[in-house]
């Protein structure tokens, strides 16, 4: 006892971020550390707050889509899709089937791109340099495909209320098939390089464990929740668009550690590939845009719609007052909620684990701060 009093140590406060290479943007966490051990963590967000929800109240419905592009800037099309679904639900219109297929193909391709980016950045968080190059190479192929379809690499504004902006190019189906083969090879390459790597396993297995009750209490969703053992996927539980026509698997983990969260995403990449292939098989000619007024003017009312984003369960609450501008748009950003679970995950972590845990949540700050 006296020895403890004589040699008293003081915890050190380490400010990680907002400019730190491993915080994936302008995220800041204040770590209280005792040597290499993390005692406590306080996340700080808001460095990228642009008031998207406020801005959306002053834009017409068609323009809000562009704001949604800029929320989760790694999975733009998934974000566009969720807003358009909310507006369509309010207006009571259903996009034509070909439009829905195109939406799902693009959304799943974007999920692939997002997961590939995750694999790469996660590897670099853990100090492996190579997977990010492989991941980016494959993501680049997908973005080239997006460019040929939507005209943009990231901020597409392609999915519109009532369908998609225009039909896909004539050679779309064969090109996507070739792309899928390439990407599958790339995913497999990253998988082989990283998944069972001894050092990678040592760094991620048993690190940042979170159990299902805590995860639910923190609002954790998406692959991170499935890694804990809860088979919740909006595509499975509340199917939307053409997902009911597809057969796929929802990978579920057991341990809820960083490796599980990583591996869920790798498995999802394969599932997305298979989903896009099924969509290509099923897709038929037809219109891509519903017949509707030129200016979207939903009737008075409100709607809550949610869907599966690469990062988790994104929700949109839309209030319309009958004008051409939404009265209130609220986004439930999956990254925001996933960040809440950072603190329980950080129990008994090392500084290096803090980086590994944050990386495994795969946050995008544009969405966290809106």
């Amino acid at each position, binding site marked *: 006892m006296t020895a403890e009093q004589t040699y008293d140590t003081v915890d*050190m406060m*380490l*400010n990680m971020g907002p400019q*730190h*290479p*491993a915080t994936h943007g302008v995220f800041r966490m204040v770590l209280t550390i005792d040597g*290499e051990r993390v005692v406590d963590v306080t996340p700080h967000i808001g460095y990228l707050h642009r008031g998207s929800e406020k801005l959306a109240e002053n834009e017409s419905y068609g323009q809000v889509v562009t704001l949604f592009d800029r929320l989760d800037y790694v999975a733009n099309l998934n974000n566009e899709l969720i807003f358009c679904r909310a507006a369509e639900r309010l207006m009571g219109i259903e996009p*034509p089937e070909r439009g829905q297929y195109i939406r799902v193909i693009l959304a799943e391709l974007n999920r692939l791109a997002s997961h590939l980016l995750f694999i790469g950045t996660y*590897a*670099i*968080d*853990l*100090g*492996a*340099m*190579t997977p990010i*190059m*492989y991941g980016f*190479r494959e993501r680049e192929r997908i973005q080239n495909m997006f460019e040929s379809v939507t005209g943009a690499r990231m901020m597409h504004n392609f999915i519109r209320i009532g369908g998609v902006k225009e039909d896909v190019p004539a050679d779309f189906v064969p090109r996507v098939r070739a792309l899928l083969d390439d990407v599958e090879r790339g995913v497999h390459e990253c998988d082989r390089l*990283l*998944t*069972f*790597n*001894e*050092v*990678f*396993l*040592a*760094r991620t*297995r048993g690190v940042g464990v979170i159990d299902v009750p805590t995860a639910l209490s923190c609002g954790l969703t998406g692959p991170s929740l499935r890694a804990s053992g809860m*088979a919740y*996927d909006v*595509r*499975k539980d509340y*199917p939307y668009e*053409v997902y*009911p*026509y*597809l*057969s*796929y*698997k*929802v*990978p*579920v*983990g*057991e*341990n809820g550690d960083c*490796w*599980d969260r990583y*591996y869920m995403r790798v*498995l999802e990449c394969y599932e997305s590939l298979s989903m896009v292939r099924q969509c290509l098989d*099923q897709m*038929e000619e*037809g219109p891509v845009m519903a017949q509707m007024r030129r200016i979207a003017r939903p009737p008075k009312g409100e709607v809550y719609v949610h869907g599966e984003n690469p990062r988790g369960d994104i929700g949109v609450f839309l209030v319309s007052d009958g004008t051409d501008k939404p009265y209130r748009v609220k986004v439930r950003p999956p990254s925001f909620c996933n960040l809440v679970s950072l603190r329980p995950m950080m129990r008994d972590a*090392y*500084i*290096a*684990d803090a*980086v590994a845990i944050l990386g495994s949540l795969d946050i995008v700050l544009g969405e966290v701060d809106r």
Partner: protein
Amino acid sequence: MRSKPVQLAIAGVLFVGVGVLVAVFTLALALLGEPDDNVTALTAGKLVIALFALLTLITTLGISLVWLERKQLGRMQGRVGPTRVGPFGLLQVVADGIKLLMKEDVSPSSSSKAIFYVAPLLVFVPSFVVWLTIPLSEDLVVRSLDLGVFFFIAVSVLSIVGLILAGWSSNSKYAILGGFRSAAQLVSYEIPLILGVLSVVMVADSMRFTDVVNAQATVPYIALLPLAFVVFFISGLAEVGRTPFDIYFAESEVVGGPFVEYSGAHWAIFFLAEYVNTFVVAALGALLFLGGWVWPFGDLGQVPSVAIFLGKTYFLAVVIFWVRATLPRLRIDQLMNVGWRLLIPLGFASVILIAVQRFYGWPTWTLTLMSLAALVVAAWVQMRMQRKDAVATAQRYAQRAVEVQPSRRRPGPESQQA
């Protein structure tokens, strides 16, 4: 902000200062004691020239590794690496160096200035001084010391002091964390490194590099002591902070560690020292385990022995960079586990095996056998710890995945039209 000429002048003075420091230090060491018989007696004047020549040579070899690493990593990652400056981007490093020298030399206002500026030299000088006794070939050596191997170990440890001081004097939390990490890491891995080197010394019966190399005239020691080589190579990686042991300047955790506050020429010195150290480890591996300038497989004719030595050294460097392209970084506790629970026992095992073999006078091939057996056992134990479980888990996940069948039948095209 100082003007460009002043910047360049400061950088120039710095480099001349480094040169003078290295020269004085090595000169003093070289002139100590009796001159050797088998080395051409050099006068003090010639020695100074030789040392400056050595400095230039080692710097060039060091920065050649920068190019090699960038090119190799590029190829391994599906890129091409530097291509713009000079043929095959060979002059890229020079361009980078000029850029670094032109940059403003910033130091934190609350740093201890004197220590802050001395620390890079303390890292840099030992990595050059060890070349005093490392032979590039039979005759190309400044001083072939009797205790050459011992000298190398004694001097190379000094760079830890520079790293700790750099971390301490920067007055930055990331720097101090990196400094502490480097202290823990380098001191821990010094022991297995020494044990690996000791194995070689025991077999060669000499601490003189020339003797060690000549003893490998028929069989390089890597064939004789695979266990010692693995221990030496892994702890060598840790000594110079290469992946997977780059935790003391891990840029995704401590953002460069002790170097985080350095910029311009001082940072360039750290950078140079890092690559010279990498070259030292590769050269040492080549000398102690790959037979240095000796080519055991037949007569190579006119190929100079320096080329053989450098070829082996670059081969080891390529392996080091290959490891970097493949592996993630270890965590600090795992690093300590690998060092204390795996490498040190293996190092002692290697020493004991050699002692037993020499005591009973068994033939040398028994050494290979015993060494390999120990290595295989260690590798198997290590593999079993993580990988087997993970592969089983992954297979279970693949089976456990919830299968979703189409819940709705797709309507025909007719209903779509309606």
